[in-house]
């Protein structure tokens, strides 16, 4: 079960011309506990707020201080238009939820909860992919280390692999790290068994 989201004390910036929409949105965000700032100028890259809502009808490239869809903060698009170009702009900025304009107050909270959850999920996926890529990059080292153990200890590859894995587990290191040490000679060859 996901816990009840609580935005108390969070900072939100609304990038939108001040109008009735920003007024309603501000009221609603304050109810959720946000400190709210409304501006219609590019967002500075330093001191990013905790959550950003952007007018995707009028937004332009450069309004947000990042260049790809990897938004460093949860981003919600405010969208009245149905034009595919505007939807694409919102996605290119990394929006993880849309709130339709004209604004229904009941649409705000669910969109924020979802934007936050998807943002966190995306970040977790990015981290996981980076981790897996690193492991794939190191895979030849594991293979080489297995060969080396297998040769030196006169074992088949499967047994050599098991030795390497046990060694990594005992030292609480990844197999790639242990393999790198063995190949580099920084590590004595682990004993069998």
């Amino acid at each position, binding site marked *: *079960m996901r*816990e*009840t989201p*609580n*935005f*108390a004390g969070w900072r939100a910036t609304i990038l939108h011309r001040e109008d009735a929409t920003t007024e*309603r949105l501000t*009221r*609603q965000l*304050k*109810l*959720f*506990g946000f400190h709210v700032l409304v501006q219609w100028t590019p967002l500075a890259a330093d001191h990013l707020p905790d959550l950003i809502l952007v007018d995707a009808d009028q937004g332009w490239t450069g309004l947000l201080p990042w260049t790809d869809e990897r938004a460093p903060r949860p981003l919600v698009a405010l969208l009245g238009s149905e034009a595919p170009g505007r939807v694409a702009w919102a996605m290119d900025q990394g929006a993880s939820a849309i709130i339709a304009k004209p604004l*229904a*107050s*009941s649409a705000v*909270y669910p969109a924020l909860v979802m934007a936050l959850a998807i943002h966190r999920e995306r970040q977790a996926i990015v981290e996981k992919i980076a981790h897996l890529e690193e492991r794939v990059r190191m895979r030849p080292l594991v293979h080489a280390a297995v060969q080396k153990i297998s040769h030196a200890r006169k074992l088949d590859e499967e047994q050599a692999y098991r030795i390497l894995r046990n060694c990594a587990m005992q030292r609480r290191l990844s197999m790639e790290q242990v393999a790198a040490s063995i190949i580099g000679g920084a590590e004595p060859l682990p004993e069998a068994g």
Partner: protein
Amino acid sequence: MGFLVFGRSMRDAVKIGILYSTTGPYGTMGRDCRDGAELAIDEIAARHPGRIEPVFVDPHANIDQYLEGARTLLRDQGCRHIVGTITSLARKEVIPLVEKHDGLLWYMCPYEGFEANDNVIYTGGCPNQHLLPLLDYLLPRFGRRPYLVGANYVWGWEMNRLARELIEEAGGSVLGERYLPLEETAVERIVAEIEQRRPSFILNNLVGPSSYALHAAIRALGERDPAFRPENCPVVSCDLQECELIDIGLGVATGQLCAAAYFDTVSSAENAAFKAEVSARFGASRRISSVFASAYAAVKLCAEAIIDAGTDDPAVVSRLLCAAPRSTVLGPLRIDAETRHAALPFHLGRINDEGGFDIIASEPAIVADPYLTGRRTRKPPQLRIVS
């Protein structure tokens, strides 16, 4: 000339829509709401003749008829204010129409929170006004291992979800969680599971006949096994009404607990006067439920605010309403301009043999926090135990 005066007074009368189902699974509550609303309307008519004209619509617990009824009120009858709906299902159905016509819905039942709509005034209470103080009372006294039951829609789901979160935060665990459709009365499997798992208490978010069936079955269980008597393992509700105790059967639910912002037994000057008025009209044996009192209060608030404002423009009426507390049968009622929720007292009632609730704990008016933003920084409870 007589015609002209009549014509003008009719033109001046502001129509208020009153939308309650008096039949179906929550018909008992609906009939009490309607009685409360009628009483308020008659009082207003006596004091301000010709100013307010009610338009009653009964959707008979049919969700499509709620929509149709609200449309008739807003579009055909020209109502800008609707007092009513009981379930969250019906409220959610009606709100988009109220928004479209820029009207105001006066919702006066306890609900599961997470809403604060500009076109709604909430006077029935959200979880920080009922569920949270209720758990504050129950956990130290009965234990942290409850069993949760609920009606199979958003009220039951969300109340139990929140309860589970609060219980687990308190280091407790939920021993079971089951749902029943609104009109389902087959509670045997649930009760068998309760008997087997032996919870600390039973949080009951069932509505109507399923809730009555649960109370009857737990009564029978308690007779077989004292561990399930109310003093050991109470059935605790947030929306059980005096009028429903008759449906359950007098004496059947004696000792079980319920949280509410109002009980017939509240001792206050406002309530004493109100009870005298209700007795005069409905007979001395009539017990006033919280939905009766809340519907009465909501209709009066609405009508009086319209009369004071000199217009039924919802924005003007809301502004006036939120400007200062208004005296109601629930006590002086302050409505927050931001959340549009009323601050409400908390009472915990224990069902007695006479079809009423003995109040065993109370807390003065609690400001509504519909999105529970203050939950993690909440002050320790200051329950006043009265017996």
